[in-house]
């Protein structure tokens, strides 16, 4: 189902939680809404779910208006499913009862599903791999199993849209990674649109077809994971998603002259006009080399963190501290004087710049 969100705002007393949001969710896509806590992503999800009403703007589902300040279609009349952050399992119902519940009550359940409720329940239990635990109570399940029950309850009535509010955040790190592929599989199996709210950029990049990055109630950028990662539109996105170092300098035509190394210049590999206006060049940690014997920007190693696949160094330069990832074979001492060198950009990114696929977000106040 396609969802159109037009100029939506939400104010709580004087605080504007959402400011003029414009967004279209396409049929069948996996859309992640990514942002730090308090950026308004959950508020937006609750507006789509119908738990809350916008202070301005409209939300349409398949062309029908469902939310505006004066018009409100209650949650149960929207063809949606939802997975809650806390899972919201009912402690007095078994796993099977949880799956059956929406099959009995959801208003958009296909007649054939309702007639073959037992069959459908078994199918869903199979999808969430809990056939053997159907008689258990929520209290008797592990975190991952509860997560699957919540998922099963949401997909059982075959809703057109699945809303997920940080569904993995209450699981431990290992399980979180494992659940990613399960969620992707469910997306492929059901073909529903998924709106997935998260503050974990790894999750968003790994699973989503498109990512909406939000900050302070506004949309910063909308794009594919690759666009968001390699071509951030704003300094916030560059820092939040790519952990990029934001280097100050000056733009002359299509070349950038960093402040701390005025004798060199870097080519424009698709830096957005917003960043250019701020005279910023974003360099992600893996885009720097560290050299001992001369290079572009001089600096001193001040910190070192072993990360398994790479080593992350903090390098203090004239312009501030820079994060740099290197191979494990490059080993530097704390306090060592080094030079940073900007890597040549991979070919794939350069092609994208020429075709200019990055989506224009429109205005965001």
């Amino acid at each position, binding site marked *: 189902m396609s969802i159109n969100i037009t100029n939506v705002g*939400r*104010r*709580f*007393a004087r605080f504007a939680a959402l400011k003029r949001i414009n967004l279209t969710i396409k049929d069948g896509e996996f859309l992640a809404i990514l942002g730090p806590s308090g950026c308004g992503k959950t*508020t937006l999800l*609750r507006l789509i*779910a*119908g*738990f*809350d*009403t916008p*202070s*301005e703007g409209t939300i349409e589902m398949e062309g029908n208006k469902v939310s505006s*300040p*004066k018009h*409100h279609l*209650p*949650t*149960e009349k929207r063809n*949606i*499913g*939802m997975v*809650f*952050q*806390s899972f*919201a*399992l*009912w*402690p*007095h119902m078994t796993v099977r009862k949880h799956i059956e*519940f*929406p099959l009995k*009550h*959801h*208003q958009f*359940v296909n007649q054939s599903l309702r007639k073959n409720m037992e069959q459908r329940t078994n199918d869903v239990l199979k999808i969430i791999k809990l056939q053997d635990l159907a008689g*258990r*109570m*929520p*209290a*008797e*399940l*592990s*975190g991952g199993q509860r997560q699957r029950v919540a998922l099963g*309850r*949401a997909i059982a*009535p075959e809703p057109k849209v699945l*809303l997920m509010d940080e569904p993995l955040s209450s699981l431990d790190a290992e399980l979180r990674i494992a659940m990613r592929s399960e969620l992707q599989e469910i997306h492929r199996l059901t073909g529903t649109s998924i709106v997935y709210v998260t503050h974990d950029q790894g999750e968003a990049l790994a699973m989503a077809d498109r990512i909406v990055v939000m900050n302070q109630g506004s949309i910063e950028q909308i794009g594919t994971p690759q666009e968001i990662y390699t071509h951030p539109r704003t300094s916030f996105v560059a820092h939040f998603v790519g952990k990029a170092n934001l280097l100050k300098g000056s733009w002359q035509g299509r070349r950038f002259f960093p402040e701390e190394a005025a004798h060199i210049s870097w080519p424009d590999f698709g830096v957005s006009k917003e960043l250019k206006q701020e005279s910023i060049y974003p360099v992600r940690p893996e885009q720097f080399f560290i050299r001992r014997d001369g290079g572009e920007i001089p600096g001193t190693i001040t910190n070192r963190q072993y990360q398994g696949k790479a080593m992350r160094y903090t390098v203090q330069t004239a312009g501030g501290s820079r994060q740099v990832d290197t191979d494990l074979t490059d080993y530097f001492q704390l306090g060592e004087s080094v030079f940073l060198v900007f890597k040549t950009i991979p070919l794939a990114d350069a092609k994208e710049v020429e075709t200019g696929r990055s989506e224009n977000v429109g205005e965001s106040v």
Partner: protein
Amino acid sequence: MNHPPFFFYGKGRVEPRAIWLSFPIRTVAFLGLVMLFVWPIARLVALGFTSEHGVSLENYQRIFSDPLTWQVVANTLVISTGSTVLATILGLFFAWLMAYVNLRGKKLMQLFIVLPFIIPSYITTLAWTQLFNENGILAQVLALLPGQVHLWNLYSYTGMIFILGITHYPLVYLFTVNVLRKIPREMEQACRASGASKGVTFCKVTLPMALPGIASGAFLAFLAGLDNFGIPAFLGIPAHISVLSTHIYQQMIGFGPDAFGRASVFSVLLGVLALIGMLGQWLLQRMFKVGSTASIDRQPRDQLSGFSQRFLECTVWLFFIATAMVPFLAMMMTSLLPAYGLTFTMQNLSLKNYGFVLFESPDTQLAIRNSVQLALVTTLIGSVIGTLFAYNQVRRPSRWLKMSETFMSLPYALPGTVMALSMIFVWMEPIPGWNPGIYGSMTILFLAYFTRFLILQVRGSVTAVLQVDVSMEEASHVSGATGWTKWRKILIPLLLPGILSGAALLFLTALTELTVSALLYSAQSKTIGVVIFSYEQAGYTMLSSAFSSLIVLIILIGFALLALAQTLWRRKEGGHHVH
């Protein structure tokens, strides 16, 4: 578009259609609340200013110039304050034991501590008087001792202070125990690490930090002392020691031309004292709210050695045996004697009193029927209305609801005699010149119970609703279930244990109510409390003992059944959460 502030529901749960629908409902409900809860008190105050000559201060002048008035006020203050001191010492001691010390069997101790909450205070008083009876076991034991040892006369100031104190210490305990548990143990450890001894740490860190909680509990004990009618009625009236609550009662049953006016003035006096107490308690509560987010730490902090541990445990159990078991045994012994004054021997035992109470006396049968009926109706209606109110207050808080809660807590916070009196004045003639016959029937008792105890259910239900996360309901909405389906399948099953414990408290309180009933009953609407009281007043102590023993038995059985039901319920939900 901005919603006006009081249409702004918490957690962003705005349901626009509900606003228009609920506005007239709210207005009507609000007016109803004012009529039921506020109007009676206004009428009561107004009555004090009316005399044969219209509006005047005559009643006040006459009562304030009577030295007896000040004697009664002084009695009230002395007895309430004295019992508060005793309750605070006991409550604090038990709170410290339960929160900090490594004792065994704390769960059972906890039950004994809250026992005074479920056994009506007039039955406790009766039990103690039987223990200290001239022919009771204590007297028999003392007779064996050499020399002339006189039994303590409970029908005295100290007797009343003692019984009030041991009845109200659970209030201080309940307020203090979690306050103590919330004090981060690091605070105490920091003091110890700075070189202070255990004792100094307790006096310099623990006690000052717990003070708002302790003082708040002490204020409640003081209020409970002002409010109590049963204890001064059983002990004070025979000894001609009047406190305000019994004095008001005596004014009312004495009738006379200016009885209502005088009773009203005394009620205002008592009401003002209670308000001062409430104000103090409210201020302290506000002060303490700042630190109330700290988590509760149930691990004992003072690890005692084997000997001290056993010594303390023995002391605690001796206290429980002496206060919660022996007096009731004494009462049971009295109830088994065929005539007063006989000594307790095997030959003398008989079930005659029980036979009379259960099968012969029309009074007791009527009273049991009335009380059960009143308690059931009050509990049923109260739990439905109270839960609906609590649900709205938690999910859609507004100024209206906040104010309504204050109204509802007024009749419970005000002393029972004051509240009963105001009910009489309002329902005798709700509209001047129209007497619907409510006063003198069961209806006025029901109205009084309902208005007085509704807040108990509201508080129980609020706790229950707070424990159900909003997402539980939202998940139900997403699954397509709203309205009655949502309540039936999700909310009621989740709320029921909480609602039930609120309802059980409401039921027990209503079943054995005395204070309000003593002023409102009529020949046909006697209640359990009233019958026990009138047996006692007429000198039929064996009958009142038998009836009281039965009631205690019923209460304990009911309590055990409730505990059992709750355990089974928890087991059904799979017990502890697996993390």
